[in-house]
């Protein structure tokens, strides 16, 4: 009797604890989901929206299958478990039934037909969508471990932070992305704007987004590309048409020439910086690293690994491994004065 009570109490307590754990986990998950800016169920762009709708449909069907089959299984386990007062006899032996087998073959076939047709429709709708005249073209080049964005018709080259205009029903303005890689495989993924598409050397790909709300959308490389794959982050700024035009105008200017930071510019042009980086209007014409002509107009440095502040820029130039151990940029062994001059110069590059 005593033992039975203890057992009951233990069972009750463990159920309570389990319930609490599930509840806490659920609350934490909700908190995380509310904070997330990379939620595939919170689309802000046409293709991501189409995918979200399709995924709800698929979730409903698979959820239905789970509840019915899982329910049958659970019920069978509870109903047919061995009891204490069972005799030693074996249950009736049933070897099979052709009718039943046929039934549970035909039903899944029908489900597959429905799922396949729905899926195919969305594949063609997204993948073979015609490109409107008004579409913006951007060429994305993946590098270990940063993103290069080229706007061929606008003559702009920038890095890591993509600016695109918002699209409205009256004035649709999707952005079509041409995806290339300079070295290994990468994958372009901004979950709230579109599914991912890989950037593969010798294998150009295309994808498109049509953002319907302004704001910043986050993403990152989704194909393992080497040591710093984790810090190949991606920001997409969806601007109003006015903001976007202003941004374009700014980016089309050559690098600012400010006499007060001439010392920093000299450091930039005389050290090895120019081998990899470009600043229009200067001698620097490298293409291995990000274009820095308008570095100061960007919010982040090191492909999103750090905010673009004076302190961070200083730390980054002094030792890139500080933010991104394994990044391709070497520490240039500049002295304190040179780094300060260089940072002052870079800070003027709006």
């Amino acid at each position, binding site marked *: 009797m005593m033992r039975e009570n203890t057992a009951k109490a233990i069972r009750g307590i463990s159920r309570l604890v389990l319930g609490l754990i599930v509840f806490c986990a659920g609350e934490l998950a909700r908190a995380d989901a509310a904070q997330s800016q990379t939620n595939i169920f919170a689309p802000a762009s046409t293709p991501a929206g189409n995918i979200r709708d399709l995924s709800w449909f698929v979730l409903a069907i698979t959820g239905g299958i789970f509840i019915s089959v899982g329910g049958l299984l659970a019920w069978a386990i509870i109903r047919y478990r*061995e009891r204490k007062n069972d005799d030693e006899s*074996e249950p009736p032996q049933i070897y099979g039934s052709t009718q039943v087998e046929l039934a549970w073959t035909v039903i899944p076939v029908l489900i597959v037909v429905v799922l396949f047709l729905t899926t195919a429709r969305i594949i063609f709708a997204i993948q073979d969508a015609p490109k409107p005249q008004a579409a913006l073209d951007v060429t994305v080049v993946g590098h270990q471990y940063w993103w290069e964005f080229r706007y061929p018709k606008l003559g702009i080259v920038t890095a890591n932070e993509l600016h695109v205009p918002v699209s409205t029903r009256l004035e649709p303005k999707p952005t079509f992305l041409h995806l290339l890689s300079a070295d290994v495989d990468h994958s372009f993924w901004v979950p709230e704007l579109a599914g991912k598409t890989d950037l593969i050397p010798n294998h150009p790909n295309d994808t498109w987004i049509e953002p319907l709300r302004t704001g910043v959308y986050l993403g990152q490389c989704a194909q393992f590309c080497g040591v710093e794959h984790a810090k190949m982050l991606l920001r997409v700024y969806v601007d109003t048409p006015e903001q976007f035009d202003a941004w374009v105008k700014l980016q089309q200017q050559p690098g600012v020439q400010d006499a007060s930071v001439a010392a920093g510019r000299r450091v930039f042009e005389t050290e090895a910086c120019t081998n990899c980086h470009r600043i229009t209007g200067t001698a620097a014409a490298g293409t291995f690293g990000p274009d820095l002509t308008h570095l100061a107009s960007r919010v982040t440095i090191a492909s999103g690994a750090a905010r673009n502040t004076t302190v961070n820029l200083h730390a980054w130039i002094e030792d890139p491994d500080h933010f991104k151990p394994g990044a391709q940029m070497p520490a240039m062994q500049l002295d304190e004065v040179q780094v300060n001059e260089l940072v002052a110069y870079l800070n003027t590059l709006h």
Partner: protein
Amino acid sequence: MADQSLPIAGTVDVTPPRRSTAALLEWLHGWVVTVDHKRLGVLYTVYGIFFLLVAGAEAIAIRIQLAWPGMHFLSPELYNEMFTMHGTTMVFLVGMTIIFGFANYLVPLMIGARDMAFPRLNAFSFWMTAFGGLLIYYSFIGGFGLYGMGAAPDVGWWAYAPLTAKAFSPGHATDYWALALIVAGFGTLGTAINVIATTLSMRCRGMTLLRMPLFVWLMLVVSGLTLITITPLTAAQIMLVIDRYLGGHFFDTQAGGSAVVWMHFFWIFGHPEVYVLVMPAFGIASEIIPVFSRKAIFGYPAMVAASVGIAFVSLGVWAHHMFTVGMTSVSNAFFVLSTMLVGIPTGIKIFNWVATIWGGKIRLATPMLFCLGFLFQFLIAGLTGIMLSVAPWNWQLHNSYFVIAHFHYVLVGAIVFNVFAGIYYWYPKVTGRMLSEALGKWHFWLFFIGFHITFDTMHFVGFLGMPRSIYTYEPDRGWNHLNFIISMGGIVQAIAVLIFAWNLVHSYLKGKKAGNDPWDAWTLEWAVPSPPPVYNFAADPVVHSRRPLWDLKHPDDPDWKYEA
């Protein structure tokens, strides 16, 4: 009933008399030179369990690093090595070795044979696989990589080109990876040939193909599939080595090679490989579920047909790993359809297992608990597989933690659960002693709870856009709490596995004596003593149905009256 002596239980004692001098060396020597299928089966399995602990430790290191954003437990380089080695080890050194261990031990016993068809090839295959494992782990101390001595492979277990090219992976870590898998692959091919030859030519009298236990059927199908799939992998590895050493340009994109060709080669191996691993697990479940439900398997012919069907369809689905590489919309649609089709035979299998339980008398012993866990988890794994096959949704889910969750549901929730079930079920046969049920229950419940804490949560962090293969993540992405929960579940699973390891050792020394047939089962391996003597059967058994021991135990109501 359990200990009734059966007419086919007699044995011939061919063990040489023990000598007392140098006993340990002789004992070791005996294991090294053995060609006995049972000893090789045990070697394979022990080897697999050892690497399960190693790769499990790597997983724990990964989870500690990801428990919180910006952790510095592992360096980025070491993290990349950890996940590469975790994946490679679990697939090639744990999954493959344990399933071939089971096959080696059980197939001859189940079909009433005295050994495998080619005992020497069998030993050769094991040692090839074993040396492959040693070779890849040697890279941790001897591999000279980008970061100096002691660089293990760090290119992911899928090793996509051109990251594996000399330009991006200097040093030898990637060479160790390729060579080790070539070596281990030859061992795998040898065992696959052996299993096919054994099942086709060594069955005892009366054991027609359609009377073979389902485990044997599944191993036959798996071995056929292995022959087809290991070949392209080995070919691709050889091409990679040619690229790296002889200036070939198969995958070297800088010289006009193709990264996509590697993906095709890898996944035409890689996807059927999943079925190579999971179908033996189906086989284990198909043996255990009937015995512990006290009923014959429901729909045996349908189960066989579904297994063969899965094997065929699985050869045409590989590019569903490549929906994001930029195939045409028509190819994408084709692979959506072929992938969804796998769901039909798989569904049939699940329905037949449920129907087997239905109307039975379910004994909830440890092996059955693991099998029931498998049924629930495999149902979910199948359904998340359907979700991933929906190409547009796959563009979101691919390479996210949702995929990690899905395939761990298959590899752990289905395969590892059934391997545990199989070990609890057959350990008495192999050692002559029962595993502790009390420890077994602890093992099951802790592992079950830990598994769900970890892998259920992973689906959600995938929905929130967390990609795989990242050594750290930004604190503002909304992944913090979920990752912490995932890591906690990993620790619960680790504790469960340690209990299991302790149970293996403890019960070997102090376990209850098992007798021939502790579970009151029906297949031939339970007719011989535990452990079975060398050469298994003194006289060739004769069977009349799929459950020869049922016929013996129920002479009034034998199976052969009902089987078609």
